[in-house]
C-alpha cells in the first residue's frame, strides 16, 4: 500500500512538463496540469522514486514519510 511519502515537491520553475513522471508512476500519483506535473493522490505513493530518477529537470523530490523510513 501507499502512504510512503510525506510530500512530493515539484519545482514548477524547473519542471518543463515533459510528462515522463506522470506516465511512468506505477501507482498514478501524478498528473499534468497547466503544463507542469502535480500530485493528485499522495496516499498512493510507494516512494519508489522513479519519478525523480527519470525527471530530466531536477524538478521533483520525494520526501519519504517517517513510517517509510523506519520500515526500510
Amino acid at each position, binding site marked *: 500500500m501507499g502512504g510512503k511519502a510525506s510530500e512530493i515537491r515539484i519545482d514548477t*520553475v*524547473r519542471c518543463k*512538463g*515533459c*510528462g515522463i513522471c506522470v*506516465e*511512468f508512476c506505477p501507482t498514478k500519483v501524478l498528473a499534468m496540469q497547466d503544463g507542469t506535473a502535480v500530485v493528485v493522490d499522495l496516499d498512493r505513493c510507494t516512494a519508489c522514486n*522513479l519519478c525523480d530518477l*527519470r525527471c530530466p529537470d*531536477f524538478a521533483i523530490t520525494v520526501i519519504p514519510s517517517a513510517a517509510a523510513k523506519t520500515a526500510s
Partner: protein
Amino acid sequence: MREVLYDNYLRTARIPHIWCPGCGHGIVLKTMVRAIDQIGWKADEIAMVSGIGCSGRANGYVDFNTLHTTHGRAIAFATGLKLANPSLKVIVVTGDGDGIAIGGNHLIHAARRNLDINVVLFNNFIYGMTGGQVSPTTPLGCTATTAPFGNYEHPFNIAELVAAAGGNFVARGTVYQPVELERLLLKAFEKRGFSFVEAMSPCPTAYGRRNKLKGPVAMMYDLKERSVPLAKAKGLSEPELDGKIVTGVLLDRDKEEYTDIYRQLTARIGGA
C-alpha cells in the same frame, strides 16, 4: 532508495537548463551525479570535460572544474588534463556526433591507451543542437534534415567499437532504466583505466518528431521496447538484433593503466 541532494552538486543559478522538455540528457546528468554522490569524489578533484552539442552543455550545470572544448576534441583535452595532474578525476561527456564522428579517432586512441578517464557518451541518434542532421548512430531508414529521403548509412555500434579498441570497462544503458544506468556509471567511475558508458538519451525535438515518436513519453516506450539485456542478446540472431539496443556490461577487465605505466617508467629511468 538512496536520497541524493542534487542541488549540492549543481550550479543552481544556471538551472533550469537549456535542454528541451523530455530530453534525456538531464536524466543522464542526474544519474552521473547520483553515481558521483555514491562514490564520494570531492567536487574539487573532479574535472568534467565536454565537447560541442547538446551533451556539451552538461558540465556547465555542475559545480566541478568544468571545461567546454572544441567539437570532437574533449577526450584529447582530457588527456592533457589527466596526464598533467593524475590526481584529478576526469569525466568526459560527449555525444554521438561529437564523440564518434569528428571525435571518433580520439575516442579509440584513448581506449587503446587505457588512460584513467571516464567517458559518458550521450547518444540521441542525431545532431540535436544544430537542428537534427543525421549522425553516425541514426538508425537505418530514419529521417533527418540531411537524410530527407531516409538514412541509408549503417550506424555504428559504439560500445562494441570502443570495447574492441581497448580500455577496461565498456557498458551501455538507457535513460529508461536509470537504476541500471547508475549501476553502470558507478562501475565505470570505480574502474581504474579507461571506462566508457554509452547512454541512450532520446531527443524528442530533433529526432523523435521526424521519426514517428511523438513526444518524450513515446520515446521512453521506444527505448523500453528496443532494449535487450546482453545475456538475452547473446541468444539472438543478427536480424533479430537489428534496431535493438543491447544493454549491460560489454567489457570489464583490469589491464595496466596509462599513468601507472608512465609513473613506473619515470621511476625506472631515474626521473624526478
